[in-house]
């Protein structure tokens, strides 16, 4: 069965600091990868996704993620965080030709202004 591991459950950063959230998955086949974000009081929304091609994908609000197949990783990055990036971030994976999204446990990011 697939599983997703997110390395940190809580991260606290100051504004303008760089962000990297780790995500590793276990699945032997071809996968589609996602990062979802949940801002306080809002519903889960898609931040970015990787299906194929360039392993460096760019999403909304300046976020990007890099797929490293050999490491089964899909880490999320942002060069300079803002207070408004305070949210919970979820990594998710599914087999390329499957339906079932498997989520990690989430990372709560707090950005101090």
């Amino acid at each position: 069965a697939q599983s997703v591991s997110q390395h940190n459950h809580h991260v606290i950063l100051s504004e303008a600091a760089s962000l990297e959230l780790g995500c590793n998955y276990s699945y032997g086949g071809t996968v589609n990868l996602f990062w979802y974000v949940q801002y306080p009081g809002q519903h889960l929304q898609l931040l970015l996704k990787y299906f194929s091609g360039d392993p460096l994908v760019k999403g909304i609000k300046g976020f990007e993620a890099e797929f490293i197949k050999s490491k089964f990783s899909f880490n999320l990055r942002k060069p300079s965080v803002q207070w408004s990036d305070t949210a919970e971030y979820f990594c998710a994976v599914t087999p390329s030709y499957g339906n079932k999204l498997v989520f990690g446990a989430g990372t709560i990011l707090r950005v101090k202004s």
Partner: protein
Amino acid sequence: EAEVAQSPRYKITEKSQAVAFWCDPISGHATLYWYRQILGQGPELLVQFQDESVVDDSQLPKDRFSAERLKGVDSTLKIQPAELGDSAMYLCASSLAEGSYNEQFFGPGTRLTVL
């Protein structure tokens, strides 16, 4: 912008009672998902519908949980009887069609507390 609607937003019940949650997906979305999110964990798929048919309910505790989407539009998730361990956020999502290439859009969720 079209959104997935869920009600109620909050539900408090006593164990052994019955509860029901309602979801109205984005218009035209054929695929509907129910997830359970326990505090400190990510969402876990309970059941997936394609139109009115169940595609995957392998993680649904069928002794107490049931889900239906009779006309292939809105859906109801029921728990009877509720247990303490059912306290969680119940999320509904919808997508245009099956398959992970179709983005899932999530509703605001129903937070269930079982006393």
